[in-house]
């Protein structure tokens, strides 16, 4: 009998990297995980050491394979999924990073993005993205401006740019490439042609010589030192869309991690949002056409729970928020809008800052915990409303995944505020699963996307259980609280900071 084969995926995330081995039914066989340092040189700045991340990833593959009790030769394909937009610059000659990576959460490019305002419609139309500190382009530009001599070296192609997928692919296969989903987050790629765009490059001031070649999300890019085909790369949210098997237009997933991201498959045509959503590439399999997605990005959801744990000490682990929230029956009139670094979709207001509204002497820590969980639900509701308006479709069920789906109270609250059933799929690790699926498709481990659909199963379902009148009253209160976050930061004050 031939030995069974498996597919592995590396999930290079914001706080840790993981390697997960899956079997052909999409079941998890083993997991290895390593955390890496978060470097905060100044308020608003967030950096990673790309060298440290590569060392961790290299070790993980071996750990996950041996943890499954198998050998490299039994891994049919390796997929990569990664934190998006985080910007790595490295020396082509030595292969070493020339500086710390600037992480997607970093807001140092705020003044720079405002200075690019004259090009706003160009970026929106060609790249599908609003001007925001979030994306890679401004981060590259900032480094080229700030580090002496870097621009000249970049123009000569001596210093290379890549997002985390690109950095890992360079180290795994020796090629300077990126996948189309990651490239769609740079503000430098034309989402219609799927190539680097000279006008976007000129507007951003980034030389073409430093950019990787854009490849499909699934094809054999090369092999690891152990001979495993490296066969997919997808940004984490696109990978989750793929892992949730949202292959048909209209199919939508929502991933609950530090932030939350709703993506709706919009088919082979990019849809430009009128309601504050991003247009992004969902995936491209081999030489097939690209599939596009509308994305609603929420900056702070799970990280608000961590804030309650780390900054207030009200809970000792993130999961305990559910225990604390269940000590009371409702939010006690209290609403928490976590606009810690402004509001993302659908508002895109960098001048907003967080508020806790509706406080009275009655409110206790249990109510605050409720308000924290409800903040995730209401922010989801705002994005769903925007998606319904843009797509002309009404969401009928929400496919939720990510770490926070372990929180039953949050899942019930989501169903209550969205007024649709919320479904958790069998594999909550849809990000890694999506990368594994794409890699397995590229190598023929799975024959087609229909065989992947057959792997998708409902693990749990929460149905709406509150009255429409209550839902509407709470939504009105939430909107009042959101209105109070806007305009908090004065532009002058912000530029000084």
């Amino acid at each position, binding site marked *: 009998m031939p030995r069974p084969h498996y597919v592995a995926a590396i999930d290079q995330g914001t706080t840790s990297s993981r390697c997960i081995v899956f079997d052909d039914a999409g*079941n998890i066989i083993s997991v290895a995980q390593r955390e890496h340092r978060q470097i905060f040189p100044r308020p608003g700045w967030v950096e990673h050491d790309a060298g440290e991340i590569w060392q961790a990833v290299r070790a993980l593959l071996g750990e996950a394979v041996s943890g499954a009790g198998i050998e490299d030769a039994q891994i049919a394909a390796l997929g990569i999924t990664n934190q998006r937009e985080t910007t790595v610059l490295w020396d082509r000659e030595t292969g070493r990073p020339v500086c710390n990576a600037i992480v997607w959460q970093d807001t140092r490019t705020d003044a720079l993005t405002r200075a690019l305002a004259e090009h706003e419609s160009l970026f929106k139309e060609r790249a599908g993205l609003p001007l925001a500190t979030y994306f890679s382009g401004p981060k590259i530009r900032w480094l080229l401006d700030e580090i002496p001599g870097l621009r000249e070296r970049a123009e000569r192609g001596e210093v290379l740019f890549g997002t985390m997928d690109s950095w890992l692919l360079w180290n795994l296969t020796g090629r300077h490439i990126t996948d189309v989903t990651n490239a769609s987050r740079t503000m430098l790629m034309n989402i219609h042609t799927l190539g680097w765009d000279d006008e976007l490059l000129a507007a951003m001031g980034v030389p073409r010589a430093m950019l990787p070649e854009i490849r499909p999300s699934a094809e054999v890019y090369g092999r690891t030192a152990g001979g495993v085909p490296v066969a997919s790369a997808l940004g984490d949210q696109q990978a989750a869309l793929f892992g949730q098997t949202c292959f048909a237009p209209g199919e939508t997933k929502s991933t609950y991690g530090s932030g939350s991201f709703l993506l709706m498959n919009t088919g082979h045509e990019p849809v430009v949002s009128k309601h504050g959503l991003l247009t992004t590439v969902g995936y491209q399999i081999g030489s097939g056409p690209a599939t596009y997605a509308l994305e609603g990005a929420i900056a702070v959801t799970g990280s608000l729970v961590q804030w309650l744990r780390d900054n207030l000490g009200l809970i*000792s*682990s993130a*999961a305990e928020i*559910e225990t604390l929230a269940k000590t009371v029956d409702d939010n006690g009139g209290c609403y928490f809008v976590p606009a810690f670094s402004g509001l993302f979709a659908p508002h895109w207001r960098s001048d907003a800052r967080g508020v806790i509204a509706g406080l009275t002497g009655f409110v206790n820590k249990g109510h605050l915990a409720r308000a924290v969980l409800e903040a995730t639900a209401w922010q989801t509701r705002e994005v769903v409303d925007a998606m319904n308006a843009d797509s002309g479709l009404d969401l009928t069920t929400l496919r939720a995944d990510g770490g926070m789906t*372990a929180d039953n109270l949050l899942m019930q609250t989501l169903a209550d505020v969205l007024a649709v059933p919320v479904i958790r799929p069998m594999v909550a690790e849809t990000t890694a699963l999506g990368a594994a699926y794409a890699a397995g498709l590229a190598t023929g481990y799975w024959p087609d996307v229909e065989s992947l659909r057959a792997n998708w*199963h409902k*693990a*749990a379902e929460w149905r709406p259980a509150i009255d429409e009148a209550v839902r509407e009253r709470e939504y009105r209160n939430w909107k009042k609280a959101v209105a109070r976050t806007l305009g908090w930061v004065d532009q002058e004050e912000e530029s000084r900071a």
Partner: protein
Amino acid sequence: MGETIQSVERAAAILRLLASGPRQLGVAELAKALGLPKGTLHGILRTLVRVGFVEQDQATGKYRLGATLLHLGSSYLDVNELRTRSINWADALAGRSRESAWIGTLHEGHVLVIHHVFRPDDSMQTLQVGTYLPTHASALGKVLLAYDPYGEAPAAPLRAYTKATLTDPKALEAELDQVRTRGWAAETEELTEGEVAIAAPIKDARGIVVGAIGIRGAVERLASDGALHMEYVSYVRDAARAITRALAR
């Protein structure tokens, strides 16, 4: 109710006083506040220091609450934490066995269902998190009873849910002995006609059983001629071990 023990009451009074503020207290201050002779206090304080409930500052000789006491209330594993740490393995268990997966903990003499994964056939199912199962008539309950650190037996009379339910306390005790010997529990049409369940213990870093994980399904799928298919037992025990390893980290 019998009489109370004076020295325990005095120890409690000392702890309460030390917990009342951030200040460290000397023997003289404690003696004054409690109206007790210093000699009496010395003996109680020495005992409290030995068990780690109170610490004495080396420099000042004053007393404060000990680290052991501070950890006493927070050492139990929160059920939501247990679900979070188990979720991947419960999914994999349901995926491999093609049956619904369940995690339970003991709660006031019942099994509290803290996690439930649907049987992966996309049929209509309702989430059972937060519901209770009887301890003596469920595989989860038998595991939790067998490894309960307090060793409490369920209150008699044991209710019969089917004609196969164990209602004789002696028969149940023999069954729990077998659970401890084998490391897993079975329930064969003891709660619901036509349904079989298997469960195994989840242990925390100290080796204490903090929950049970198992599967439940139709007797014709999980057993033949009254005997369980052993591969299902392996799936359940693998999942329990994987979660136990995750909790040890």
